[in-house]
């Protein structure tokens, strides 16, 4: 492939997001020989730190520094990228709340193709990129053919590509001069931090997480009892919070908390990518679900197809006896 491949690096507090290490792998699925360029935008010492770290992963790092970029406002960054990206570029962006904000419009401005939420890349077929996406909440997958000859923006789902641990010694190129005026009609004001509940699910090594399959608020007690018995903390998926059965601080997922437990027991969770996006660190995952086709079984280590309302109390009882 003749086109240049770029990876947009999201970062916070001077550290690159996990996705930075995945995008480079995704790029290699497109073209194993590609020299991928990381684009890091921001300001100050934090930016320099991220650029330095990325030069150990990417053969080339483009740095864009501007005080206006201290907070990643997609409306400003889209203009920056339009200014610095060469024609026909293939740009990889993490499919997170930033990428969802940035990329669709970016593809239009670049007159490039756009593939959102890519879960797998199967290489090229002529000018066509072969990728896999999911539809209907992950129940069905689809093979995508995308003509990337005029450039493309690909939003890549986190956790779908293994992190790259190969080393590089890249050069950092300062592209700040080409960034443009860094102004937008949307101005960032502040971040309202979600209320912290009485439990910090991010601190627990073992999580018992409940989803829609728990059926009723009263049944949450079943999960709580299991958690108490094994010394775990109860977390949940978004529908449980929407139903106000548990507080927001217990929600795992892209719109909730990101957790890194050692063991994750998913009770009645179907396994949407928004939920799985909040689970990092590759925990030992047990999924208990009535529906044998629940997507969670694709990512779990251990799957049990059963009615959790019956099984979990039995399990708890057995553990208690054993103790």
């Amino acid at each position: 492939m003749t086109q240049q491949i770029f990876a947009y690096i999201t970062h916070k507090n001077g550290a690159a997001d996990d996705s930075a290490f995945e995008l480079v792998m995704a790029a290699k699925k497109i073209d194993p020989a590609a020299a991928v360029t990381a684009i890091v935008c921001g300001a100050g010492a934090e930016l320099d730190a991220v650029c330095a770290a990325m030069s150990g992963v990417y053969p080339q790092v483009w740095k864009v520094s501007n005080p206006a970029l201290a907070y990643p406002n997609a409306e400003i960054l889209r203009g920056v990228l339009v200014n610095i990206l060469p024609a026909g570029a293939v740009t990889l962006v993490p499919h997170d709340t930033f990428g969802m904000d940035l990329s669709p419009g970016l593809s239009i401005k670049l007159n490039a193709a756009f593939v959102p939420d890519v879960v797998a890349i199967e290489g090229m077929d002529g000018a066509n990129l072969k990728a896999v996406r999911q539809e209907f909440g992950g129940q069905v997958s689809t093979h995508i053919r995308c003509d990337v000859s005029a450039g493309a923006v690909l939003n890549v789902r986190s956790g779908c590509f293994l992190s790259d641990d190969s080393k590089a010694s890249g050069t950092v190129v300062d592209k700040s001069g080409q960034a443009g005026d860094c102004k937008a009609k949307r101005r960032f004001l502040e971040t309202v931090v979600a209320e912290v509940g009485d439990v910090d699910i991010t601190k627990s090594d073992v999580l018992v997480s409940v989803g829609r399959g728990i059926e009723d608020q009263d049944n949450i007690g079943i999960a709580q009892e299991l958690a108490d018995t094994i010394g775990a903390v109860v977390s949940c998926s978004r529908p449980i919070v929407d139903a106000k059965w548990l507080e927001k601080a217990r929600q795992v997922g892209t719109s909730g908390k990101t957790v890194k437990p050692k063991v994750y027991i998913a009770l009645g969770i179907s396994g949407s990518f928004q939920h799985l996006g909040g689970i990092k660190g590759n925990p030992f995952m047990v999924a208990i679900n009535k529906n044998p086709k629940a997507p969670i079984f694709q990512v779990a280590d251990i799957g049990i197809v059963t009615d959790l309302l019956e099984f979990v109390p039995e399990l708890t009882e057995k553990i208690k006896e054993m103790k």
Partner: protein
Amino acid sequence: MEILVCVKRVPDTAENEIVVNSKGTDIERGDLVYSVNEWDNYAVEEAIQIRDNAGGSVTVVTVGDGDAEEILRREMAMGADKGILLSDDAFNGSDGRGIAAILKAEIAKGKYDLILTGAQADDGAAQVGGMLAAMLDMPYASLVNKIEIISDKVIKVGREIEGGNQEMSEIDLPCVLSIQTGINEPRYVGIRGIRKVASIEIPVHGAADLGVAADSVGAAGAKVKRADYFVPAMGEGAEMLEGSSDEIAEKLIELLKSKGGIK
């Protein structure tokens, strides 16, 4: 405030298993029922509430075939003032960019201060809103879970971002916003409401009406095409425990113990 909400008719898949047809070209749709995309419904509710407070009107628009009229009526029964159906054989097979181009052509014919879409629909792409904004050269915010009207020039929006946090921004009008669920509590629409708006004329605009070149949209203009549908292999990663619940529980306890899951 003149508000346009872009909506989509999608199959209701929450309670029903999705089955891919024998050729793998589509899902089995025969036994599915359709309704308005959940995110879009929140967007329409938000538009109605803004209109009720700030005045103006709410128009709902969709790209689809004749069946899509049903969801326009539902949203009109909810309180939208007007519905527009964008329908043409040439639109079939459009990718996200094609849909955005069709919508853009319709929007260019009117004057809207605020354009809302749902954050995503059945295909989980979350793309049309952002594309539309770029085509219209309007500012955009995705995953909006709060809207506060400041003036007729500027509004304040909250975006749902990682960690359950909310990113607050000011955004100039006109703009495009994609709406996240939970921003409000959509009102109920019953059969009676739909019947009340059953006789209201819904204009249908085709490619020619919109001045859209037939080969720039639809399958012909699509840069992204689906090759097939498939159900991912089951339990790729998971080792499925089977047997009596007693046996399963014992096996599971062993595993949990070895992984440090029981303290």
